């Protein structure tokens, strides 16, 4: 009797969560653990055997000047993109909740870039930077537009940032709009009656109440921009002179072009730890600042 009920319960468990767990374990959990194990080996994709090298791969990662330089480029790209994305998105959301005409149509329009994959967006903007901006520069005599952003090591990263902001602003705007709409009417009215208008109301009342939205949007931009690959591949492909090769692309190159799987995976783990740390601290910090209503 007991045994059959155990079989029954096991059958119930497997029928409902078996497939889900099987896929989850095979695709995510096992590869993740196995990947961690790989970082302690010198496996190179070609030979069948490998040996343990201890922490050698991590040592290689932290002394690899190229990786460190690209890591710094990535940090700069992530920081600037995250700030600009949120500023633009917040401004758009502010303007589009102030009751102007055609609000819904406008919101829908700003959201369009987010529907399209990074590869396609990268190509669209490649033409913008290479042909359209240079044309404008020549026609109107604007010197800094005459040469393409994409051929200049200092400006190519800005091309990446511009497209990233363009891609995510509409998406984050929608989250901020949900935040604006969620602010209780009585709080706003109280602020109006107390004589807080315009910017004062915005900074003293609205923004503190929007902290949860900031929290979500920062989390999204940080975790996504840190792992940018598609856009990087189609827009700049790391050029010129590797000045725009971001960390995620470096990992790919290390593993699949130079066939150093162990080192590549060690870099991937380092990236994972950094992203995890940033996300967790960021969430904790913001939780503290949330205002109770």
């Amino acid at each position, binding site marked *: 009797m007991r045994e059959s009920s155990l079989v029954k319960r096991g059958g119930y*468990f497997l*029928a*409902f*969560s078996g*497939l*889900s767990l099987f*896929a*989850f374990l*095979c*695709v*995510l*959990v096992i*590869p*993740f653990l*196995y*990947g961690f194990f*790989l970082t302690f080996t010198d*496996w190179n*994709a070609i030979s069948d055997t490998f040996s343990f090298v201890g922490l050698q791969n991590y040592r290689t990662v932290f002394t690899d000047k190229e990786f460190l330089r690209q890591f710094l480029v990535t940090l700069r790209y992530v920081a600037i993109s995250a700030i600009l994305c949120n500023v633009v998105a917040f401004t758009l959301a502010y303007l589009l909740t102030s*009751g*102007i005409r*055609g609000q819904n149509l*406008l*919101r829908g*329009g*700003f*959201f*369009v*870039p987010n*529907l*399209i*994959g*990074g*590869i*396609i967006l990268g*190509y*669209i903007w490649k*033409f913008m930077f290479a042909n*359209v901006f240079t*044309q404008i520069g020549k026609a109107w005599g604007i010197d800094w537009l005459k040469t393409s952003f994409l051929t200049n090591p200092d400006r190519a990263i800005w091309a990446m940032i511009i497209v990233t902001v363009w891609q995510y602003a*509409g998406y984050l705007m*929608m*989250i901020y709009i*949900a935040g604006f709409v969620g602010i209780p009417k009585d709080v706003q009215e109280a602020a109006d009656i107390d004589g807080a208008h315009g910017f004062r109301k915005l900074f003293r009342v609205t923004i503190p109440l929007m902290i949860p939205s900031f929290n979500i949007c920062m989390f999204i931009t940080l*975790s996504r921009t*840190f*792992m940018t*690959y*598609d856009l990087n*591949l*189609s827009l700049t492909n790391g050029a010129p002179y590797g000045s725009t090769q971001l960390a*995620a692309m470096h*990992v*790919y190159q290390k*593993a699949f072009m130079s066939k150093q*799987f162990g080192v590549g995976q060690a870099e*991937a783990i380092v*990236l*994972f730890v950094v992203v*995890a740390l940033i996300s967790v601290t960021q969430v904790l910090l913001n939780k503290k600042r949330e205002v109770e209503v």
Partner: protein
Amino acid sequence: MSVRLRKQHWGRTVLVFLLLILFLVPFYLVINNSFRSTELFVNSPFRLTNSLDPKNYIDAFAKMKFLNGLQNSFYITICAVALILFTASMCAHYLVRNRSKLSNAIFGMMVASMIVPFQAVMIPLAKIYGSLNLYNNSLTLIFFYMGFGQAFAVFIFHGFIKGIPVELEEAALIDGCGRLKNFFSIVMPNLKPVLVTVLILDVLWIWNDYLLPSMVLLSPSLRTLPLSTFSFFTTYSVDYAPLMAGLVLTIIPVIALYLLCQKQIIEGVVQGAIK
């Protein structure tokens, strides 16, 4: 006061419309120049096309094997999303209705796994599934999406099912309704709003994904749309005009979907982010 307010509104409206135009100019340029020759495009990208010559489209359509890519994208997206929806909703239901240490551990692991970026498992995946000879197969890709999609979908369903009163199900079970039948006829219909949210997010993700299919699908006949666009671009990068048409062709399916169910898409995306 009211005059000033109205003035402000006019100022804002104009500002926002200008911003939107700036935002959408790239699309205008791509569509406009997809009907023009490379020479016209390079010399005067902004000038409105004076013909709707489909030559570039015919070129691009054939060269990027558009129909083949479209078909593969549809097949993979539909299968993967259907599998995610069924398996994840059932799993979430089990985890909510059978609270135990094991259930909590499974759920906790799934939530924690959402922080792992794809790049952290990319190399081991290539090693494991490559050595099992499972690469270069659409089914493997569908299975990968099913695995990667679980955590988020289970998380969303879990939150929603917690809010559904258990009494409904208990009544059905007492009446002799089997567990599976109970799930499909009683629980599933209640999940509709959240099924739509997960469906939309997963469709957009899988349809646009590049890196994972680029690793798994090696033969050209298996390529999804983003892959065929990419290979088309790296092969024919001298002649711009057909490339523009190729971009428009790739964008059309998503934009069509957006025009059809804009409200659901925006709601789904916002809900998915907030939770």
